[in-house]
Every structure is written in C-alpha cells, then in structure tokens.
C-alpha cells in the first residue's frame, strides 16, 4: 500500500490496470448497492397487487408514505390490503436495466413516426462535432501558431479573442439560427464559437513554450523567420499541440448538448429529451453512457496514435509501439530501451 502512495514513482503495470478497473468498478458498486439492496434508500413502493385501493394499478410507483396511508385506510375497513415492493424512483434505474437498454435502445423504433432512431441521432451528433471541430481547427490552429510565434500577431488578435471567449457560446444561439437557419448549421456554429477562441489562446501558449534555445540554434543554422515557424516551432511542440487538440475536442463535446437544442433539436440531445418525456429513463442513461464511451474511446484512440506519431518524445519501450512496429514492418528506427555505448 505504501508503495502505491510514493510520490513521483510510476505505478507498476499491474497496479495501473487494477486501479484503472477500480475507477469504474467503484461507482458501479455504489450504484448496484443502491439499486439492489432494498433497505438502502428505496423511498418508493411499486404496487404488486392493488387490493381494494381503487386508484392503485399493478406496477405503479408511489411514495412510501402515500402507500402506507392507503394501506392502513383499507386495513381499517377490513378490505383486501394492497401489496408492494420497495423501489427506487424511476429516474434511477438499476444497472441491469440500463445494460439492457444499451442494446434495446438501438432496436426500439422511435415513438413517433419520423423521429430518429438512436443510431441516427448519434450519427447526427458525431457529424455536428466533427464539422464544428474541423472548422474551428482549420482556422484556430494556424492562427494560434502564428500568435505563438509572432508577438505582433498575438497582440493584434489575443485581446479581442480573450474578450469574446468570456461570452457564453449558447448566448449566440438565436443569432446563429437567424443567420444559418434551423438545421445542423447553427449547431455547428455554436461548437465553433465554443471551441475556436479557447483554441487560439491555448495553442498560442503552447507554441510560446518552445525552448528558445532551439529557436536560436536554428537561427545560427541559417533558418529564416518563416522556416522557423514551420521547421522549429511547430515540430517542437507538435506533441503538445496534439494533446491540446485532444483536450479541446473534449470541450467541443460538452458544447454539443447546448448546441443541439438550438433551432430544431437534433442528435443525441433530441433522443435524450424525447426518451425522458416518455419517462424511459434506462434509455436516457444508455444514451448518456454511449456519449461517454464514444468520448473515451475517441480519446484513447487519439492517445494511442499520438504515442506512435511522436516516438521521439516518449522513447520508452511500450506494448502499443511494439505492436505498431510489427504491423508497420519496423520502418522507422525505434528505441529498444538502452542507451548506446559511446565508443
């Protein structure tokens, strides 16, 4: 245990895996306990047999106190007593219900004809994110790089960007609808507004952190200003830029929900709202979990690719890299883990 709490020492492989699993298992355990152990919470009662209570129906749920009141009323008149089991509110479905919904949500047709299926909603959301992030990055990345490299460009653009970035992106919703109509375009615009201004500042800061000694070395080797930007600044901080983009992509996802209620509600947000309206909460959870899975999977994939792309930065032997090495037929020189001897 004490070895797990040592500072500045990386965890062993087993500990990493174990603790990583635990980080998911612990919340799941709490959720299961609350769902399956009847005396933990369970503030409601699900009616099993209505007995003589006229307004009870089998399967309906109500507060424990209300149930007890009705039961004692019936008991006092010597009628048939209703029975019920303790239950959690319907907004907290049990894990197995959500697990089932993870599958069934995809195969249940939408309630209204013409509404989207879950996979269609998801696809719409992914498109919104993709275009929003792509457009933002197409302008934000080069602008951020130039801001980081040239003080004059930074001075020209950063104050106003800093000003705009404090305006909440959803505030532009009505405006964007007026400009772009009610379909996907205003939603993409919201994602762009939410991402772009942060992006320029974050990227400019990363570029500014490039070791000035490397820039000076390049200058003494005859690099001209334009070459400095693309041959020194950018490659020197490329792994950090890549990580910035990863984090910003996560940001874009958080803007998704506000973006999708602009104009005609669409995508996963529409699905969630619709399911909640029909009080189909397992589906709501399923949809939220799917967003989480998509986000995490995307991030892991990007991390995996990044590690491969920037081998020079993390010259550590790693399982993923060795796998890639095998796949790619060892085309690039990769580190084997030992420093070569000086002859």
């Amino acid at each position, binding site marked *: 245990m004490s070895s797990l709490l040592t500072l500045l020492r990386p965890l062993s492989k087993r500990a990493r895996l174990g603790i990583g699993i635990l980080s998911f298992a612990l919340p799941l355990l709490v959720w299961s306990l609350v769902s399956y152990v009847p005396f933990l919470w369970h503030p409601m009662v699900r009616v099993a047999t209505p007995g003589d209570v006229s307004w009870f129906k089998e399967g309906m749920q109500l507060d424990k106190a209300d149930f007890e009141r009705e039961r004692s009323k019936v008991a006092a008149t010597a009628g048939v007593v209703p029975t019920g089991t303790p239950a959690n509110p319907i907004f907290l479905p049990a894990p197995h219900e959500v697990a089932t919904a993870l599958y069934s949500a995809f195969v249940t047709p939408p309630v209204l004809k013409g509404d989207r299926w879950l996979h269609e909603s998801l696809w719409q959301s992914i498109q919104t994110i993709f275009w929003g992030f792509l457009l933002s990055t197409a302008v934000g990345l080069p602008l951020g790089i130039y801001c980081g490299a040239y003080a004059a460009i930074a001075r020209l653009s950063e104050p106003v960007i800093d000003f705009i970035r404090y305006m909440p992106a959803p505030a532009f919703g009505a405006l964007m609808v007026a400009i772009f109509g009610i379909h996907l375009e205003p939603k993409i615009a919201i994602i762009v507004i939410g991402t772009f201004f942060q992006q320029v500042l974050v990227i400019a800061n990363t570029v500014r952190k490039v*070791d000035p*000694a*490397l820039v*000076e*070395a*390049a*200058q*003494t*080797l*005859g*690099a*001209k200003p334009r*070459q400095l930007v693309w*041959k*020194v600044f950018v*490659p*020197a901080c*490329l792994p950090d830029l890549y990580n910035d983009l990863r984090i910003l992509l996560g940001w874009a996802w958080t803007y998704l929900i506000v973006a999708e209620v602009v104009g005609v509600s669409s995508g996963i947000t529409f699905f969630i709202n619709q399911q909640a309206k029909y009080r189909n909460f397992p589906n709501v959870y399923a949809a939220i979990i799917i967003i989480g899975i998509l986000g995490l999977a995307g991030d892991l994939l990007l991390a995996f690719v990044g590690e491969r792309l*920037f*081998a*020079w*930065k993390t*010259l550590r032997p790693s399982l993923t890299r060795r796998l890639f090495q095998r796949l790619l037929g060892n085309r690039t*020189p990769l*580190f084997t883990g030992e*420093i*070569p001897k*000086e*002859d």
Partner: protein
Amino acid sequence: MDSLSSLQTPEVAARFTRLKERPVVLDVRGLGRSFAGEQGPVTALENISFEVRRREFLCVLGPSGCGKSTLIRLIAGLDLPTSGQILLDGKEVHGPGSDRGMVFQGYTLFPWRTVKQNVMFGLEMRGEDKPMSEREALQWLHLVGLEKFADSYPLQLSGGMKQRVAIARALANNPRILLMDEPFGALDAQTRANMQQHLLQIWRNVDITVLFITHDLDEAIHLADRILVLKPHPGRIHELIEVPVPRPRSPGQVNDPVFRATKAHIESLIHPPAPLVKPNETLPLFRLTQRGDDVE
C-alpha cells in the same frame, strides 16, 4: 606577457608569425553591451576589441558573469551591441546567419529529428537537394565518429555524443567561424578530456576558425592558440595571451613546465595574491565540533 613569450620554442614562435600573416576572419571593434537593470543600466561588456585570424583557435576565458556568453551571442547575431561593431570577413554582422556556426552549452539538438536529420538542418534551410545533403551529413557524422547513430534520436545519445552531433551540425553549414559557448561544461571530466582531443582533431582536419568560451584554465591552455582573458564588472579585456605550449597537444602536457608556467601566469591575472589575514583578527563564529575523532 614577456615572461610567456620567452617560453615559446622556435617552432611555436614561427607558428605565431605565420598566423599573423593570415587574413582576419573576425574583427571585433570597440564592442559594448549594457542591459537595463533595476538600478540603472548594467554594463556587461565594455570596449572589447580583438581579431581572430583564419584557422586560429581562440579561447575566451573569464570568471562567471564577466560577459562571455554575451560576447559570443553578439558575435552570433543573437543579440545586438549597444556600441562598437563586429565584422566577419570585413562585412558587418547584422543578426544570426549560417556563416557563424554555434555550439551551445545546453543541448540544442532538435529532439524530433534523427541525428542525421539534425546535421541536415542547415542544408535543408538553404534548399539543398535531399540525397546530396544526406550524403554530406553522413560524412560529417563520420568525422565526429557517430555515423552508426545516424538514425538514432537525440534522446538516445549521451551528453558527449549530443555535443559531437551539434559540432557536426554546425560544421555542415560550412561556416567561416565556429562559436562554442562552454560546450563541454556539462560533461564529466573523462568525457570532457575526450571531447577536447576530439575537437582538436576535427580542427586539424577541417578548415575552420574556432572561438571557444570556457572558464576552465586547463581547457583553455590545452585548446587555444591565443587566450582572451576577460575581467568582470564590467566585462573588459584583461590580456590577450599567446599560448607557448607546442602542438600537437596531449592531455599529458598539464605537467609540462611550459603548461604550468602559462597556467600560473593566467592564475595570477585572474586571482591577484590576496592580502593575508591579520593574526589578531577574530574569525567569524563557527560551531566547531569537539569530537573531531568521530570522523576518522
């Protein structure tokens, strides 16, 4: 000065005569640089003038803070002088350029490039075609004995190897002068001695003028034709010394009488004999242990 020139053997004296006939590569005239400090301007360098001739090996020696790095940065064009001028082959220097190669004290290899790609950097900036510059880079790597590591990344190299690549990278640009700012300062004694031998060998084989900064007396005497000794606050020239130690130099020469005499001379320049402590003067209070024998 006279005491030292009397130590020159006829061969060494002849070499200096030949040296003085060669064209001037670097001409520094009345150079000064002051920085804005909190209590007014701080003068880092004042009225520095000297010449470096073709194929000369000049060391700049001085205590920490005497402006050595400032001087070399000015020559490299990474900083601008407040007074005076710097001429390279008679033309005034404005800003950095590939005609002055530089090796820094810190490691400045580009970590995202392989060793070979690092050496190719300058050629690439000039727009040379790739196969050609690749061949050239390999030749320079061969010269510094690292062609085996052409495809390694800088992270995989030891400190000494990194500096050898940095030398190859600077030389590949075919500069007029090689500027080196305490390039071996971060290396251990053994590697450092190897690197010095290595550098002398490169210098013998390549048509290059070297301006080498150090604060290590032995290093300066071992490497240099002449030593420019600076004194601090503000940085000025103390003396320009012709090193009488004959070439080829070897590490064993440190015990040579000529070497020792040169060293003694420079030491007396840098550290003038300190006045003795008066016997009745009280020493500051130290906490002295009673049990000195515990240490044995």
